[in-house]
């Protein structure tokens, strides 16, 4: 379908983008890779008067080493996150999850920041970011602030980013040498997950982080499971009880792909599998 007519702005700096956002306010929409925004515009579910394309801001692209953290520019594509050697070394879970996003064409367009800002509870990057304790660097008219992952995801398609703000980068605390696995449960390839488990573990098993995708209105952390896994052995018997706790406190949706109780069941089964694979067992 054809979107409603809009004006197109292509700023070349964050300052310029913020100024445009300030000028047009509610009538404007930021565009990153456009892989979620454009379908929405084409189906006329949203009709901004101005689209501000971040594609021309080169400072927003790329991954750098910043001591105890990796810093991923908001406009870094899923493809680049997946393939990056720093990510593989220090945040393997992100590489594994990025590999599972949509298909190759979309991974070359869609961006890390765009996906997180979009905050689709079925999106594949929220749970890994949450599990790794990501920090979100957000620029606004008054300067830059940093938001912890636990505060970033507010609700369905809602984040801590204000209307006049832009997500510029995401800091990922290094998890060097941690094993990782992203277990995505789908009916067809290239689908959003019905449920997915983001698991990363140190040793087998000293410490574990487990994020849940599509188990509520935001990405969730399976805290009870994480606690139970500390010191568990990386065997089916060793993780079984911890995995049983994975659905605690979740509130998954019921839709064509599965009712809530089925999703909770899946979360328990898949958590066990994801943790074992992350531990290399």
């Amino acid at each position, binding site marked *: *379908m*054809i979107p*409603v*007519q809009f004006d197109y702005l292509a700023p070349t700096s964050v300052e310029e983008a913020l100024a445009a956002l300030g000028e047009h306010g509610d009538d404007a929409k930021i565009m990153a890779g456009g892989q979620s925004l454009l379908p929405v515009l084409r*189906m*006329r579910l949203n009709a901004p008067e101005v689209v501000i394309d971040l594609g021309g801001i080169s400072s927003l692209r790329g991954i750098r080493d910043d001591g105890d953290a990796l810093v991923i520019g908001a406009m870094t594509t899923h493809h680049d996150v997946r393939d990056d050697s720093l990510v593989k070394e220090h945040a393997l879970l992100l590489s594994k999850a990025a590999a599972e996003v949509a*298909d190759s064409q979309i991974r070359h367009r869609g961006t890390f920041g765009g996906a997180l800002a979009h905050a689709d509870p079925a999106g594949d990057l929220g749970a890994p970011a949450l599990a790794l304790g990501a920090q979100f660097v957000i620029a606004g008219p008054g300067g830059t602030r940093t938001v912890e992952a636990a505060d970033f995801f507010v609700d369905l398609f809602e984040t801590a980013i204000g209307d006049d703000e832009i997500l510029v980068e995401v800091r990922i605390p290094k998890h060097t040498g941690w094993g990782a696995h992203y277990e995505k*449960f789908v*009916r*067809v*390839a*290239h*689908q*959003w997950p*019905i449920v997915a488990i983001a698991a990363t573990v140190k040793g087998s098993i000293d410490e574990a982080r487990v994020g849940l995708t599509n188990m509520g209105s935001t990405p969730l952390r399976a805290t009870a499971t994480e606690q139970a896994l500390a010191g568990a052995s990386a065997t089916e018997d060793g993780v079984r009880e911890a995995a049983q706790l994975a659905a605690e406190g979740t509130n998954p949706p019921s839709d*064509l*792909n*599965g*009712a809530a*109780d*089925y999703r909770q*069941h*899946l979360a328990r*089964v*898949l958590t066990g599998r994801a943790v074992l694979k992350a531990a290399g067992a």
Partner: protein
Amino acid sequence: MTATQDRAAGEAQKEIGRDRRRKEDQRLITGRTRWTDNITLPGMLHLAMVRSPFAHATITSIDVEAAKSSRNVVAVLTGTDLADTQGVIINAWPISPEQVSPTHLPMPADRVSFAGEIVAVVVARTPAEARDAAELVDVEYDVLPAALDLKEAATDAVLAHPDLGTNRSATWQFDSAQAGTGGDVEETIAKARDGGIVIEREYRQQRLIPAFMEPRSTVVDPTGEQLTMWSATQIPHVLRFALAATTGVSESKIRVIAPDVGGGFGGKLQTTPEEFITFAVARRLGKPIKYTETRSESFLACHHGRDQWQKITLAAEADGTVTGLKVELLTDLGSYNALLGGGTPVLGAFMFNAIYKFKAYQFNVQTVLTNKTWTDAYRGAGRPEATFAIERTMDELAAELGVDPLEIREKNWIRHDEFPFTSVCGLTYDSGNYEAATARAKEMLGYDALRAEQQRRREAGDRVQLGIGVSTFTEMCGLAPSRVLGSLDYGAGGWEHASVRMLATGKVELVTGASAHGQGHETVFSQIVADRLGVPFEDVEVLHGDTQVAHKGMDTYGSRSLVVGGEAVVRAAEKVIEKAKPIAAHLLEANVDDLEFAAGRFGVRGTDQGMTIQEVALATFAAHDYPEGIEPYIDAESTYDPVDFNYPHGTHLCAMEVDTETGAVKMRKYTCCDDIGNVMNPLIVAGQVHGGVTQGIAQALWEEAVYDDNGTLVSGSFVDYLLPTSADTISYDTDHTTSPSTTNSLGAKGVGEAGTIASTPAVVNAVVDAVRHLGVNDIQMPCTPERVWRAIHAHDGDAPTPADAMPHFEADALNQDPTDGAGQ
């Protein structure tokens, strides 16, 4: 000329049977061709449709003022404006004289009966401006209760069309005792209840959406002497007829062109409101008009497929010899009787008995109107439904007896030496060899080894269980002998037309009435003509799809193009040879009886004298020297009305792994051995089989059109309506046995639908087989992980099997039993 003679020398290279690459593919695949939406005419205007969001509502007012004053809008028209000029959408197959059917106006003025029905149309200079203005059309509705659930609609609890007084559109029955082709089914079942075996099951054929690749598009140019319509249709000839018959425009003033058409699967076997509205607007404004639907509109408004409840009662003797079969179908028409409408299930009426030697058979269908998108033919049309039901039920019989599903089939199928075989429906199966196809398929699959593995996994209680599914299908194709269609009250014939034009330069134009939309007719028909006339493959041009070029035709569907259309091609080509012969004899100064035609050349027997048919074509064009008393004309045509159907068959075997913890299923192996008679082009056949098998697997595992309680299509995009890609499927092992058809001279049988018909039950049988030992005997399609998981855990007490998945044959259960319809 020399080329032809060289060919004659190397005669071995026949075109038929060669795996020619498709000559039409380069332009189709690159898109540098004439898709309807690529057509742009001077001064052309564009349409956007305003569609009802409600399943059932009265239109109380339509305010078009804001839309009219929107930028570059030329007109905004409603059903009231178009009134009689819009024509009527036809139903060509009223399956009973009492059929209850609402009048189907392309754009109703007073009431909408499904969500997606068109209530107004905007005409603007660009598609974007038309779409912008369409949003400004303000329609007020009074929402009415909607008939949505098929079974509930069959009780007339809520009426889809209150004026009609009932949703029960028509019933249709075949009864072998009445027809004199077999015994009495009730007696047979009663007998089986006493010491024999009776299997009673109810299966659901979910609603499917054809999802052809090219959305529907129509361009109408009213500026010439003829009104010309380009449309992405499978049926240009039927469309021209329907336009003429219902708009009052003379048929001779309408030209319909199906240019390149990007797939249909039956979904473009329709005459649509969109086509009629575009036609009406073009006539009214005197300007060329284009309408191209969005994918979302395609989901909502293109006709859907399947959507049945199937109640099956199979009677057998204690040893598993089948005796009787009773079929009761409820089928959802949606809100109108479409072109074939209730005829689609009737196309399956003679196929539930399949390859088995039933002695008594009865088929009943009740068609039901609801407030949902209309349904009609979808790849296989009637026969996938039949094959699914019988192949699932044969597996249940095998399970009841505790024998291998192939063993029960072999016990009951028609043996090779029994062909031609007259079925319990009175149809004569021309040829086949079920033993050979099954043996080959088993060998390819490694059947025995997989059975052994299955046993091991069961015994070990593996998390992943293995199942093997069988489908030994047959189908009837080659629609259709016109007299048979007449006896079924179908509104047209089943012949096909072809003409061969010999051009002066020796090139050949073949005109066919079978209008391809991706099947490869251009290639295969060229191969046939090249062989028959002995001309190079490259010299044959296939023309089709334009009613001014191919003036007679019945179009493409029902696996008919080769077996009916191809036979017409053969006959037309033979007439060319017959007509060329006296001219060749005259030029060679020989007696006609001394000429023999081989490899494109008329030779004088016993001499080295001769001339090619291409030389005769040039001489006939010049017409300087030809015999007295005949015309200088060697072009020829043929209208071929098939004498009978033909019956492809095959054995499809599938191995599925089921993760019992999550319910996820995974295909491990798929093999099939099809018998489609003589193969014209193995490459094209492989394409049809692979694509068809995938489409059938998709019904088993992924596709389902779902409506919510308000009648809104929930699976209205590819996010929710799941189609597989190559990433979801495996490579299938395919092979063929060859029992040439005896009903056409090519010895060919249809292949366009075979894979789709066969594969669905093979997959579901495999999934059920994997978990049967856990107490499961059915899983409703599509077999989603959730459904599989719930079926496995139905007996745990915590996760009930959905009621739908269980057989329910209580006396008051729906289908036709509680009614006094003509079907009983």
